[in-house]
């Protein structure tokens, strides 16, 4: 077998050294009744590279990939162009096949990249510090809610109706066991984010308000007043960003007073991957750093006084604190964080700004074009690269009908909020630098046909 270097002669020689008659004899601690005496029945045997490639390629061909179709899906995962050098660099074996940097003397590559990543994320979010990544945006979001509980010692979290429904779902699952009380609501198909309604819910019991920016319908609103109201009530503002490219053009949540900013980093450097792996971003103020979950890379010096980096503040973490840790997270999204930081370095300030401008420009043009389709109405006139259309009929079957014509035309609110009254006609459309004019025309035509 191509991944197993031992030859039969090696095995026999090693068994002699060990003093065991056979490999099977090394498993004597396994209760005999449960011990298997051969390969598990009914499963196939080993296969060549060629055979495996053939089998998996056949499965891959049964999917319609984003690159093959006019493509307009967003809602927490976005299609952006990733420079070829990103994937090349993350496949260097020294990155790909290394472990969490527990031995810093021989892991400076990973550690320095993480330190740079943390700095980029903190600056992008307008925060003091960021950690070395979480699993994804949704888990980063509930970790932020837990962190706000620890800081404020309060248990009521007010979630915006514009927060991604999967993120709300994850928070609800966790709250059932942690005792947090969540105030949630379904979004309304209107032009404005629900900031005013959120403010009304904040009281002396509130640990945090959680608001997505831009929100699930693509709407954006100033967070400053919400932050002030939170702080006046002794609560924290948690801002969630699922489309980091937006921050190339719009103000950072930290700048507007958010105390914890979390989000999904997939847009930068990480492909769609059918939902994972992605990379959770997590940033906050200096004063809360010891309540943060996750790993942190920090600067220090070595025995010769040379600058170097280590994992630090690990007394927050499970391998030291066990049941008193701030989180149970161990493995995070290291390689996706590396992809993020490389792509961000290629973009830089100018490139991110330009990328965001192109996204916004294309989205503006697409919104206007689609609003000219008979019966279709643009719900929100303020957006970054994603907006919501109100169709004259249910959007979910329209999306399926468009898919049959080879157009991936957006995410229906019926998919995200099954059965929710008043939302079934909503279609969320994301337009990035990858969408061409022809794609927009194809979407308009497919939409017309689906609504006819």
């Amino acid at each position, binding site marked *: 077998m191509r991944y197993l270097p031992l030859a039969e002669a090696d095995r026999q020689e090693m068994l002699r050294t060990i003093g065991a008659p056979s*490999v099977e004899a090394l498993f004597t601690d396994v209760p005999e009744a449960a011990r298997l005496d051969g390969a598990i029945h009914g499963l196939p045997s080993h296969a060549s590279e060629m055979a495996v490639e053939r089998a998996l390629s056949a499965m891959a061909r049964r999917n319609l*990939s984003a690159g093959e179709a006019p493509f307009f899906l967003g809602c927490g995962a976005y299609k952006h162009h990733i420079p070829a050098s990103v994937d090349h660099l993350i496949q260097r*074996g*020294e990155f790909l096949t290394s472990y969490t940097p527990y031995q810093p003397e021989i892991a400076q590559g990973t550690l320095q990249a993480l330190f740079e990543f943390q700095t980029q994320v903190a600056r992008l979010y307008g925060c003091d510090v960021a950690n070395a990544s979480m699993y994804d945006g949704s888990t980063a979001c509930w970790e932020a809610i837990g962190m706000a509980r620890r800081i404020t010692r309060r248990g009521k979290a007010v979630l915006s109706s514009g927060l991604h429904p999967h993120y709300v779902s994850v928070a609800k699952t966790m709250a059932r066991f942690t005792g947090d009380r969540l105030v949630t609501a379904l979004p309304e198909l209107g032009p404005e984010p629900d900031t005013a309604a959120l403010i009304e819910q904040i009281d002396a019991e509130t640990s945090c308000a959680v608001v997505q920016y831009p929100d699930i319908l693509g709407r954006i609103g100033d967070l400053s007043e919400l932050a002030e109201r939170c702080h006046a009530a002794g609560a924290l503002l948690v801002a969630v960003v699922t489309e980091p490219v937006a921050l190339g053009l719009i103000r950072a949540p930290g700048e507007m007073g958010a105390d914890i900013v979390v989000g999904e980093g997939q847009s930068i450097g990480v492909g769609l991957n059918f939902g994972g792996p992605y990379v959770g971003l997590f940033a906050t103020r200096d004063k809360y750093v010891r309540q943060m979950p996750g790993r942190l890379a920090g600067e220090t010096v070595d025995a010769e006084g040379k600058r170097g980096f280590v994992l630090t503040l690990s007394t927050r973490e499970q391998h030291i604190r066990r049941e008193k840790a701030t989180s*149970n997270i161990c493995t995070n999204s290291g390689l996706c964080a590396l992809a993020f930081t490389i792509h961000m370095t290629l973009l830089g300030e100018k490139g991110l700004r330009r990328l965001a401008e192109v996204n916004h420009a294309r989205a503006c*043009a697409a919104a206007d074009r689609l609003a000219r389709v008979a019966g279709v109405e643009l719900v929100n006139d303020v957006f970054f690269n994603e907006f919501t259309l109100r169709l004259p009929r249910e959007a979910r079957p329209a999306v399926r009908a468009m898919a049959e014509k080879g157009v991936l035309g957006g995410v229906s609110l019926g998919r995200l909020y099954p059965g929710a009254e008043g939302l079934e006609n909503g279609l969320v459309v994301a337009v990035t630098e990858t969408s061409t004019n022809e794609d927009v025309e194809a979407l308009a035509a497919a939409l017309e046909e689906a609504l006819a």
Partner: protein
Amino acid sequence: MSMNREGRPTRPESGHEAETGTWTGNRALMLEEALIFEMDEADGCGVDFEILPGTGRGTARSAVEGAQHLARPPLHQAPPGPPPRPGEDRLGGLLRNRPIGLPGLSEPQTVRHYTRLSRQNYAIDLGLFPLGSCTMKHNPRLCEKMARLPGFADIHPLQPADTVQGALELIAKLGEWLVTLTGMHSVAMSPKAGAHGELCGLLAIRAALEARGDAREVVLVPESAHGTNPATAAFVGYRVENIPANDRGRVDLDALKGRLGPDVAAVMITNPNTCGLFEPDMIAISEAVHAAGGLVYCDGANFNAIVGRVRPGDLGIDAMHINLHKTFSTPHGGGGPGSGPVVFSQALTPFAPLPFVEKQGDHYVLVEEETAGEHHGQSFGRMTAFHGQMGMFTRALAYILSHGADGLRQVSGDAVLNANYILRSLDGVLDAPFGASGPCMHEALFSDKGFAEGLTTLDLAKALIDEGYHPMTMYFPLVVHGAMLVEPTETESKATLDQFIGALRSVAERAKAGDQSLKAAPVYAPRRRLDETQAARRPVLVYQEPKQAEAAE
């Protein structure tokens, strides 16, 4: 006679001591690398955007052309090259008004920066990486190639199910393998890593207990467990109590039985355990826990030792996570991403999380909140956005299909053989606290017993770095003094093991002989020992531009 022969062949010259340092700080192939924030020309860009003819500006050409038909002129009727000004965009007055502070590099600078950084890392591709309980095995490149097929890598999680039948099939197929290999009843694919899988298992356990109206409050965890076990149990709201080990490094069955009662919700057992030993009483443990009304969680981090040899389902386990990034060789990537599917017994299956893939006829469907009510109404809910680590599923299935049932059995056999070979080859050199109790599983555990005064496990580990190895897991498990946990995995050859054994013997003998030079190790790594105390005392977690020096006068 050729020109080449008349050249100036280099040869070692005597009488010149080299330790003078260099002007750059580089040492030949060992290259120092600044932070991106410190580079002189870090206001560049390594990405080109579409060019608008006539303006020389990179911008969204088609969007501009499209916009010209519009009744209402948006900002793009004019070339959108210059940044939009407030009022010309649709950003609701939220246009960013100050720089972010992100350095940008051209592609060649970027490639060089990260290539240089990569060379300061140790990795499996460079050599043996015997980090115990981490299963650092070779990562087949076929798996990387498969994960990058556009049909898997370039599909959106919310696409209509009809357009992703192959992806759903792949998830279902991998799930079938995991269920069959473990002899369990069902599998939850969405957990993002091992600790997330533990959370999944304990949430299902708590949901099951609550469903039968039997709230319990304690989870028992062996002292030798990974830190994630108690952290997870505490997160789910349980009080954590330790289970003691016996002198053979296994769970003390009598002590466990003595503690079981109506307040114990579950026990979390790692099997094989973190001492590298199989729990021979596992069936008895499960029976006792079940008899007391509790459930059995198994930490499957060490499944690599037993895959194809024994099925956890035959040992009475109710839930177990599987680290695809360990047993099924998806790369660790310097700390993730991982993937932690959880297999469940029949008792826990109704409580498994959403979403999951189900085959209905010849069609694969994704069961989500919407459809769960019909036949999965007791689910504890959703753990993450979307459906799990697809990129890891693809790699894991490629790995599993490559090995097949026969190959996977060979995997565990060779992994255990390699660990025992190391264990027995160091007889009389390093103390193996449980060596007398029989063969180990996939990892060999040693202690620092016999080291000379002042020399520690840490010193030995750092000396191994100089010998060209990543050290083993140190000071874990906590039940052994100065623990050294060595997991070679099955992808190492005998020659590699022999060299490693030689190196380990050499440094162990130095430690026993009191060779104080070990304290200076590593000497040959890109950095000497780093000051972790200073890093924690005065945390510097992001780069800060140095304050401009005041003028001299």
